[in-house]
């Protein structure tokens, strides 16, 4: 089936069986390999992406479900406003092997957006722990991740205008770095 969605601000049309996992479409068809597969069963969070501003496990989503949706992956996180989280992860040593990092960042940013929507304080440390409970990390003991998320939120809160819940579509041509996969998807600007 033909599925049309927005990925990291670009619209994208792709012809694949509708039951293909969003994770494979991202990684293989679109060459967006930043999103990782840790289990393929919805248990580790390595494949977390934002789907219309909500955190989902891309390994559980059939691509048919994303028709018309806006998706943000780690490659688009900076443009979507999550740069301060990425910087804090580097500065505070929250990424070790890095396998969980993209998913962790997407969950952390999703939690921030959700807290804004609900009028909650994103900084609550227990709240952060709960928001990340679906993202397994085997390297860090979560200590530096939680520290970095907290610092990233501080920076985000300082930003003059709060980021949009989902990124506005951008104009521009295909970024060649996104075209690495042998897939048959097309990105249109």
């Amino acid at each position, binding site marked *: 089936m033909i599925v049309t969605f927005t990925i990291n601000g670009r619209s994208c049309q792709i012809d694949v069986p509708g039951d293909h996992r969003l994770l494979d479409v991202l990684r293989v068809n679109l060459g967006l390999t930043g999103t990782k597969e840790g289990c393929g069963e919805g248990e580790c969070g390595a494949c977390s992406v934002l789907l219309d501003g909500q955190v989902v496990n891309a390994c559980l989503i059939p691509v048919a479900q994303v028709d018309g949706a806006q998706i943000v992956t780690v490659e688009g*996180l900076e443009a979507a406003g999550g740069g301060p989280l990425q910087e804090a992860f580097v500065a505070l*040593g929250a990424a070790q092997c890095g396998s969980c990092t993209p998913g962790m960042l997407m969950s952390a940013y999703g939690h921030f957006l959700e807290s804004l929507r609900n009028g909650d304080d994103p900084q609550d440390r227990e709240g952060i722990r709960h928001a990340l409970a679906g993202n397994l990390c085997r390297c860090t003991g979560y*200590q530096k991740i939680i520290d970095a998320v907290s610092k990233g939120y501080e920076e985000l809160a300082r930003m003059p205008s709060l980021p949009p819940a989902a990124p506005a579509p951008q104009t521009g041509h295909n970024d060649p770095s996104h075209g690495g996969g042998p897939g048959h998807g097309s990105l249109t600007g």
Partner: protein
Amino acid sequence: MSVGESVARKDGPDKVRGLTRYIDDHNPAGCWFGATVRSAIPHGRIKNISFPKGTRWDRFVMATAKAIPGRNCVPFLTEDLVLLADGYVRYVNEPILLIAGPNHDEVERAARAVEIDYEPLPAILTLDEAIAAGTTDGCQVPRPLHIRRGDIEEGFARADTIVEGTYRVGHQEHVYLETNGFIAWWEPDGRVVVKGSMQCPYYVQRALKMLFALPGEKVEVIATPTGGAFGGKEDFPSVLAGHAALLSREVGRPVKMVYNRTEDFTSTTKRHPARVHYRTGVDKEGTFTACSVDFVLDGGAFITMSPVVLSRGVIHASGPYHYPAIEIHGRCYATHTPPNGAFRGFGVPQVFFGIERHVDRIAARLGMDPVEIRRRNLLKPGMRTATGQLLRDGVSAAEVLADAVDRSGYRERSKRPAPGPGEPRRGVGLALYMHGAGFTGSGEARMKSLVGMRLTRSGRVEILTASTDMGQGTRTVFPQIAARAMNIDVDQVFVAEPDTARVPDSGPTVASRTVTIVGRVVQQLAETLARRILRFVAEEQGGGPDGYALQGTHVLSREHGTPVGTLADIAARMTEASGDVYLEQGYTLNPDIRWNEETHEGDAYPVYAWGCTVVEVALDPDTLEVQTTQVTASHDIGTVVNPVLAEGQVEGGVAQSIGYGLYEEVHWHEGRMLNPGFTNYVIPTSVDLPDIDAGFVENPFPDGPFGAKGLGELPIHGAAPAIANAIAQATGIDVCELPVTPERLLAASNAAAQGARDDRHDPASETKKGEAT
């Protein structure tokens, strides 16, 4: 001055942008996918392999052991492990046949369609069965090890009390978040190239040389950024690389094999299950007079790494304590289960669960404080370890104990008032431990780890090493060491991709040896390179090399304090004048180190690192669920090269140890893992862990780079025994087996109640002097 600074990890920016390319992120053009057909039974002969109708078998390419051009052997310390079972299987999921095709899902389906008939043979599936049987038919075991020091009979005769206990631990899975994966291809010139996730490129090269009967120059191994390893990518990658390379040879195209989580769980190595028995004599003051240790491991179906896991366990089995007399006996049994392999700690977490539980139980018997009994018996400079190693400086057992006890508030916490009804019971426990850095004995002298260093034309310093970065930070700390040695900016230094065609053999990335052993060579090379640059400048500009100094990105004249040129300009002229500026050097082990492998006597390690972990737990009286509520750790790893990275190692190690202590358990049925997924093999999540306070005591090691010792494994030793000790303190329930699940707690508490009734079955039997045990 970049040693001691928390330089941000060099691979961080790519990792947070999703740009780091792990093995599964590569899809070479025309690549086929490989899958593995595995044994369905734990032990037996293969009668027939058939390919039933319903699959277009002509669309796939297959390989069995017959296709291996060299020897069907993946060599480690011994040469017993086969790449593919050849007519005979020794564990469930042993690889038998490989299959490749252009579409990943179709290959997986085809692999499942293959039918194999077996003639089953009796199987030995647990350590207890193996001990009862004596040996396993069809499997080999490493030789037993014995350490003996002092007059053991006299030591026990002198004891006022003798305490005995048996402690058990099961398998632990590594759960690196990136599963094992490789891509292999053959070049037209007959070279095989494999690329994948690994710790030890030269181990993989050695295996491929043997499997394909090729010389080293025909085997290129490239380590991609590795998404966690913890020892699990020390041994197993040699197998998977062999599979991918064999299939690629048959297919004539690149072949990619990346395990899914289930396959990685069921088919790769795990931590060795173990049983350790302690019998300790102690006098009235609480001083140990003698100790007898019996340490038994389950090696699985092949020997692989077991001899060294056993050796390391045996050497550490005395713990950080002094005994006038000690005997330690270690044996490894074979079972028809997947071979157990390297896992962070390497035989040592098993014995530390035993010893640190046991010491607390001795203290309880004597009515002594757990801190005090440790203080009385811990190793100090000038004492000898169980192997007879004379400890000179750098012994910090007392310091880390004091530091962890102070910072954790252990004293106040252990005097908490009893909880009200329904309230969680809180307890605090500690564990004291050490870990020998580098290979055992003269291993580092034999290894002679090589490192290369190049001054590039643009004035940057390239470190060429086979040490990989699996998240622990090699690519950041090596540049810090070199930058400090040369007094240049850390940004001027970078680490080359570990590719055996380019980097020399620095040995494997294991045994907490990367910083203290390989890093030492990095330091020495950097010092040599700095001298060479200054000599060149002196020749150009006049005067002696001492008149110049490197600083940041420049060379300065010492006299005037002014720059005489940039490193970039000078490097360009140096390469112009003398070609490639490349140095290579090996590691020299301190010649005073003496080791007898036969008797396990002498200097077991160049240096020990020391640690103490204090854990507070809260136990729900109704569900018996245990939550860790506070962790304080103190470690002496010598000079801390990068505090943030070092804390990260400690926090991660503590988390894995908490998993080992409370959650992680492999369930088996007839040799098959029943819980190969995250739903039922539970590792700690962010809500299961408390904040972890990771502190350091810096006691520099003169032979390490700027005083650094090893760190990677040390922090995994403490939390599991500390948890069990905390539970005992909170509840009086003596748990002697990991993980401490609610079921096990209930069983232990029932057993204790039963024991109190008939006063016979306490697992820590106590005997007065002269009584039989």
